[in-house]
């Protein structure tokens, strides 16, 4: 099926997001899901990006604003803590940086090395405080 292109699409096509039966999806974390090749999870939109957000965990207060407002499910939070950014699915929109109340997320050129960015992390300009 996956060899077919969009122009061979047939009316009534069913795309299955998972391999085999799925019983309790809300209690199954993405890393434990049996994604099928048809699931967009398996592909990447990283080549869209010119700039990427990088995370400095030392500045992060785990408020989760970036998680709720990321349109691309690319902020990985586990047990109420911001963990990392999923760079396969992040389109580099920059919303997470805008809503971050501390200096924990900043946009950098796509090709920049993460370690280099972290070692030269800009000083906090003015901390934005957002209510919610």
């Amino acid at each position, binding site marked *: 099926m996956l060899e077919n292109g969009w122009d061979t699409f047939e009316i009534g096509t069913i795309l299955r997001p998972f391999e085999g039966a799925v019983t309790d999806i809300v209690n199954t974390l993405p890393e434990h899901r049996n994604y099928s090749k048809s699931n967009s999870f398996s592909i990447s939109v990283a080549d869209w990006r010119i700039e990427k957000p990088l995370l400095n965990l030392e500045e992060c207060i785990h408020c989760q604003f970036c998680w709720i407002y990321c349109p691309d499910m690319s902020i990985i939070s586990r047990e109420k803590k911001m963990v990392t950014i999923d760079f396969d699915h992040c389109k580099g*929109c920059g919303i997470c940086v805008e809503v971050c109340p501390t200096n924990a997320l900043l946009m950098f050129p796509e090709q920049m090395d993460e370690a280099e960015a972290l070692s030269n992390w800009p000083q906090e300009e003015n901390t934005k405080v957002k209510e919610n």
Partner: protein
Amino acid sequence: MTQIKAKTKNLKNFSTSTERFEGSNLLCPGCAHSIIVREVLNATDDNLILAASTGCLEVCTAVYPHTSWDASWIHIGFENGSSAVAGAEAMHKALKKKGRLKQPERTPKFVAFGGDGATYDIGFQWISGCFERGHDMMYVCLDNEVYANTGGQRSSSTPIGASATTSPAGRTSYGEKRNKKDIMAIMAAHGAPYVAQVAPNKWKDMVKKIQTGFATEGPVFINAMSACTTEWKFAPEDTIAISDLATESLVFPLYEIIDGTELNITYRPKNVIPVRDYLGAQGRFKHLFSKQYEYLIDEWQSRVDAKWEYLQRREEARV
């Protein structure tokens, strides 16, 4: 329901939700459609039966041979996402009655999504039918005030003065000539048990309304403001900032209407900002800031003030 309500008490708790909507869809960077969809889907732990009318959300999340939906999801036509979900709901009810459901204790939530083109205009008759028949479903309009997917034509949700491809601003025109349709009043007039207007930047208000909607028996209508970076013409990182301007200026007031009559305002900005600030942040209103059309900004402000006054009076009068 108690468990999930506790989950949304604060953002840290809410962030333990597991997504049922996947990345690597083809929505534009910064598109509010997917922020809204996530807030809706994460508001419940129940199984989901979903539909989407043709539009940005549909074409970008079901790009053959890929799907971004980890739930039962159907696309049929531009006009009838609502009836597809209503059909599934009716079938579920019938099978349950006949004792033919494998898991009768699990009742899924039935939700249809549509853009404002699909909702205010082309699919309106189908939605109206679903509401008249009283299906137990939720209809969510992703209101970006334009037919975004086909190049930004005006819809009956496009506000006055906005430049759209079929109502462009120029030397002889200030853009869209008509006022945005009051879809909230129209849907409430169906006598629907729950009708609410939401915005994704006010996530708590939104999730609370979605949960009220899910707990309501019968048809529920949600009008969700969806800032569109492409057609409203703003930078992708500003989606939440623009949404904040909309709710703080009262251009997009947040309220609900219960049983067609009881109106409650659910968010009152502490400092109401001028409508001018909202308009000025978007390219689609740029021309209003020229000498020729500036009078329209004052007219906009008066309209927004009058609507706010009206909502407050309705709330007070309980009619």
